[in-house]
């Protein structure tokens, strides 16, 4: 990537706010595109045409809105977190995606794409999952619309998120363990892509994050901006104004792009994405793609990546399976390059501390992913006393019980906490 001048950055940001991206080549400025095997080109062109034919039409939007209201349970609440605010010296608001059906924002995308798959005449759906939240959401959405669903999940994640594996199976999905590669989300995406390559026209690939080849980053963003649109209106109504800071966690980047996008034009709102800092800054110790990566091509898109000097993708680490991914959506890469969003990290330990603090002070068990946003917000509040902060609480933490049992709960039971 060539260096951007200040003028380039301003122009790209103006174009982003004006809704120019993705452009006709599927790019967000220099990022994005469609780096896929030739075999998938007809399928992805069909998806793009289908998306153009349905998304945004009155008929599809009515059907989607009805499912979001009556089945997902939207709008989700905006909660004034008074006790956290008192502790942090800030006014803290939480956008409660943990209250959405199946327990996370993932359902917004899954039901939207399942409805699209049905309209496109797909015979079956494949999906990948990391934390299992997208897998559960896909399984539920497919059951809802009546399509068979196969979910690829890394063998390591199946151990970490065992309760979700059972939920997917109960919801009628076939869960296929991926024992190749890093046995986490990235290997699951590779395997789902291989499945799709084998039957590109009969299979619908229900990608769970704002990553992958065009038009997925766009499609997923469009289905997730409901989070930001609701939150913006709720803030104006309940808090009487926009937040000073808007903070969400970033793995692949779907809940964050969904929350951020409707606020991009609000220049006074500082936007911060929090990546998984794991337990160190060396390659392999974290999943901080934007904070610490370099541009490259992985799984269909040109974006920021965690890679070695030879262009080999690096294994990542995070206590949270949903953030444990070496790439990130191309729109985030653009937002970072133009300086509209700043990306920081929170460590495993900070995330665990945030889970505990949120549980004890607000009576909410957040997902480990979302806890990274809480940790980042706490840090921002310390540097900016008395400000108003809106945090994307992307999911609930019930799925993390095996990890929490070993850490926070073990500490409580041993009288250490």
């Amino acid at each position: 990537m060539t260096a951007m001048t200040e003028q380039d950055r301003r122009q790209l940001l103006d174009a982003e706010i004006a809704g120019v991206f993705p452009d006709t080549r599927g790019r967000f400025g220099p990022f994005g595109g469609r780096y896929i095997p030739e075999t998938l080109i007809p399928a992805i062109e069909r998806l793009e045409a289908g998306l153009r034919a349905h998304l945004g039409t009155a008929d599809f939007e009515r059907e989607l809105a009805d499912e979001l209201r009556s089945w997902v349970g939207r709008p989700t609440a905006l909660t004034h977190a008074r006790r956290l605010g008192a502790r942090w010296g800030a006014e803290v608001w939480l956008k409660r995606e943990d209250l959405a059906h199946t327990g996370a924002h993932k359902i917004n995308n899954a039901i939207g794409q399942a409805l699209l798959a049905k309209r496109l005449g797909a015979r079956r759906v494949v999906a990948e999952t990391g934390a299992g939240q997208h897998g559960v959401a896909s399984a539920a959405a497919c059951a809802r619309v009546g399509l068979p669903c196969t979910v690829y999940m890394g063998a390591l994640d199946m151990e970490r998120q065992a309760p979700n594996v059972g939920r997917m199976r109960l919801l009628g999905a076939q869960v296929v363990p991926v024992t190749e590669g890093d046995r986490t989300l990235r290997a699951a995406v590779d395997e789902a892509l291989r499945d799709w390559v084998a039957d590109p026209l009969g299979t619908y690939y229900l990608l769970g994050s704002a990553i992958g080849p065009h038009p997925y980053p766009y499609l997923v963003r469009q289905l997730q901006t409901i989070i930001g649109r609701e939150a913006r209106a709720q803030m104006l109504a309940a808090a009487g104004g926009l937040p000073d800071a808007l903070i969400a966690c970033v793995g692949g980047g779907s809940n964050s792009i969904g929350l951020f996008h409707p606020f991009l034009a609000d220049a006074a709102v500082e936007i911060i994405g929090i990546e998984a800092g794991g337990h160190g800054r060396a390659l392999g110790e974290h999943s901080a793609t934007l904070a610490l990566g370099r541009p490259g091509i992985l799984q269909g898109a040109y974006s920021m990546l965690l890679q070695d000097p030879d262009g080999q993708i690096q294994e990542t680490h995070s206590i949270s399976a949903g953030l444990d991914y070496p790439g990130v959506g191309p729109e985030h890469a653009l937002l970072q390059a133009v300086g509209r969003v700043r990306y920081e990290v929170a460590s495993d330990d900070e995330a665990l501390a945030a889970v505990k603090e949120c549980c004890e002070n607000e009576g909410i068990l957040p997902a480990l992913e979302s806890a990274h946003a809480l940790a980042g917000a706490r840090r921002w509040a310390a540097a900016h006393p008395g400000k108003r902060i809106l945090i994307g609480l992307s999911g609930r933490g019930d799925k993390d019980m095996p990890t929490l049992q070993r850490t926070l709960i073990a500490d409580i039971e041993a009288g250490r906490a």
Partner: protein
Amino acid sequence: MSAATRENAPHARIEAAIRAAGARGVPALVAFLTAGYPRRERFRADLAAVASAADVVEIGVPFTDPMADGVTIQRSSRDALAQGVTLRWILAELAAMPPVAAPLLLMSYLNPLHAFGYAELAAAAERARIAGFIVPDLPFDEGGALREALKTRGLALVQMATPVTTAERLAKVCAASRGFVYAVTMTGTTGRHVAVPDDVVAYLDRVRAAARVPVCAGFGIRSAEQVARLAGHVDGVIVGSALVEVLERGEDPAAWLRALRPATA
């Protein structure tokens, strides 16, 4: 005069080697091996053995995320990476070893090439006597930057066609391809055994009609019957996973390759 326009430009050597087999009345054999697999220290010897029986050789650059490949090439990639095989090492080995007769291509996913830098890559490939590249995650539409960099050295960027490629796109892919057109015989990843049904033969005839460069069929080819069935419909056949398995078992790759094409024996 640029290298790309000369008859001995690297890409033209690939085309000539494939046509030469056709002139002998047999389909060309395009053989794939993963660099440094099964053993890094045997790379030069394995390559020389494969090249002695093949008309063109594809050398696989290992990658951590080979999304278009089946289990065999995933395994060979992972193992080669664990042995420290890199693009830089492969290029250095090739530049240092005695030349082989068969033209060589590198088959690599895009990110290692991007990390190397396209301009530097083209120069290093020329020094290593590489004639072209195959990049499975680089469809025609995204290939402009790499294609231009390779063109300055006369290096081929082989494009792929598949049974589901539309006629309009097939024309573009075939026009842009140098060296040969890689006709994928089935949808799916590499390495699964497939019969050759009539519709595949008809598809290959369509690709051949659209292409000015030779057409080679690949994905799932592992037997002499398949090669015999494809002869007459393609200019060459590509064998990948099956050959990697032969090397894995420690068998003689040259003998195995020769047995695929009894007519030349």
